[in-house]
């Protein structure tokens, strides 16, 4: 207690004397934030480096760093963060009681929070479709692809994965019955319940943030259309009436709107529909052709999507439409809870691998240390 109070006093005092030169701008802008990292080895060092780099930091030598991170990893992991200029100590913590990877992630999250003021994502989870030897199953893993656990054992095609808010439930389309049907899967109990198993295809489930409603593409009327129902199947309502196919809906975080792909005006484009029904409003994505797979950022400000030029590109556009920011080659983006990082799919030869993208710095880290293919990621938030 006294130690941390002392830290606060020290920090406040130094900050008054010599205000640290605006970190916020660097973190939200396009520049990397230079930090040094000393005292770590092996897996802890590798995990810390990965976590910090994908959070927008650059690991540099202690003399040029804005913050010095130092510590050790023996029977436990220690971490200290000091402002190089002001000498203010921002963090001094010890982590124990979990495998080294988890301890490193915990330290990384604390470092990110102390320096940027925003919670880190190093302990969040992703779900994805895993494909090895033609067998596809749903998997859940750490955000960096480690500790992947199989969630299904159907030996049937599984597509369109979507994490429910809080990360304890997963929705997906499985072909296990012979028909593409939508299920909600409680990851704690393993129990799953059909959400939609109408004649024809039941695809692309997206659950609202409050966990109560599901937007999805159902073709029982003879055409793939956008529907919404409650998770318990009640109140099934059709929201689009087009001759073209709709695909890949996602919710605005306030649950008021749904963004969906439609070809109603020719090429695939993004539209927003009120969740309670109403007209489809096209989102302007000037210059971006064949836009698919939208994902609304948790802060509501932006929509990430895939566009096709010569190859697929991950793009971001303001939720109201406007200037498109082309970020990197890839497809099927899913936002992290921080509205900053994106997980997406990359094609490498015949294989598909997941990658992480730090949007402001455009840094990409590929999660390719596995056999088989991984695709269709969804980030738990």
């Amino acid at each position: 207690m006294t130690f941390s109070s002392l830290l606060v006093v020290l920090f406040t005092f130094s900050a008054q004397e010599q205000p640290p030169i605006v970190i916020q701008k660097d973190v939200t802008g396009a520049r990397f934030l230079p930090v040094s990292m000393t005292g770590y080895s092996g897996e802890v060092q590798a995990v810390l480096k990965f976590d910090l780099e994908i959070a927008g930091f650059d690991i540099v030598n202690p003399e040029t760093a804005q913050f010095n991170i130092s510590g050790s990893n023996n029977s436990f992991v220690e971490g200290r963060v000091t402002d190089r200029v002001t000498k203010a100590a921002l963090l001094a913590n010890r982590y124990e009681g979990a495998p080294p990877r988890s301890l490193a992630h915990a330290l990384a999250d604390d470092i990110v929070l102390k320096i940027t003021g925003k919670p880190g994502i190093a302990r969040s989870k992703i779900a994805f479709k895993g494909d090895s030897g033609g067998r596809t199953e749903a998997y859940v893993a750490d955000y960096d692809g480690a500790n992947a656990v199989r969630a299904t054992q159907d030996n049937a095609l599984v597509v369109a994965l979507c994490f429910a808010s809080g990360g304890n439930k997963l929705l997906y389309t499985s072909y296990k019955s012979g028909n593409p049907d939508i299920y909600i899967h409680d990851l704690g109990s393993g129990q799953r319940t059909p959400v939609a198993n109408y004649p024809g295809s039941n695809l692309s489930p997206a659950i609202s943030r409050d966990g109560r409603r599901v937007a999805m593409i159902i073709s029982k009327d003879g055409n793939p259309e956008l529907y919404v129902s409650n998770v318990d199947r009640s109140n099934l309502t059709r929201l689009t009436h087009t001759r073209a196919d709709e695909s890949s809906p996602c919710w605005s975080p306030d649950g008021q709107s749904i963004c969906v792909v439609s070809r109603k005006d020719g090429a695939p484009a993004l539209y927003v529909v009120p969740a309670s029904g109403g007209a489809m409003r096209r989102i302007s994505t000037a210059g971006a052709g064949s836009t698919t797979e939208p994902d609304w950022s948790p802060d509501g400000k932006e929509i990430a999507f895939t566009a096709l030029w010569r190859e697929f590109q991950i793009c971001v556009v303001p939720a109201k439409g406007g200037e498109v920011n082309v970020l990197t080659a890839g497809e099927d983006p899913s936002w992290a809870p921080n509205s900053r990082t994106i997980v997406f799919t990359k094609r490498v030869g015949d294989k598909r691998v997941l990658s992480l993208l730090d949007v402001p710095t455009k840094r990409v880290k590929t999660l390719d240390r596995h056999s088989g293919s991984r695709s269709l990621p969804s980030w738990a938030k």
Partner: protein
Amino acid sequence: MNRVHFLKLLALSFVLAATAVACKKNLKGVTAIPGPLRPPPGPPPTASPAGGDQGLPVPGPTDTTSKSLKSDQTGIELAGIDRGNYIGDYEQFKQQTIYFAFDNSEVKPAEKPKLDVVAEHLKANPTCKVEIEGHCDERGTEGYNLSLGERRALSAREYLISVGIAGERVGVITYGETKPAIQGHDETAWQKNRRGEFLLLKPKTQ
């Protein structure tokens, strides 16, 4: 909020009143003309079939009814097929696999004779059904291709219905880009992968 609700109710009552007037006019009319196939405006009926397992065993020779698709209709309602009651046969229609243009779900005129062969076989074997599998090449995103594959299978289904096959006998399934006919990343492979395949379903008791 209340005011908005009131306005909505007001608008609704006007619509209802207008509809009532229109109906009365129709009653006075001379000949009852079948209405257009376009679904009624407003929320769709909620009484559509709830699950695939209810199925629709359709009695009688419905095959003679031809339903051509109007351009303003979004689709022809699907019925569930209990696949457990059928034996699937890919061989019968192996030569009838149809191919599609890039990012397009319309049945090409040149492919229609293949569909006619499928239709003739179904007419000659009234206890059989068919499931159309819609497939895509790899040049679409995975989520998008699932809907595109579905739309392709539905287009082929609409054609079969237009030449007299009952909709209840034609199921569809999409595999998107997950089951390519040919591995490869060039136009030769893509052409072969943008396709609709026909799985003949023969009743198990036959």
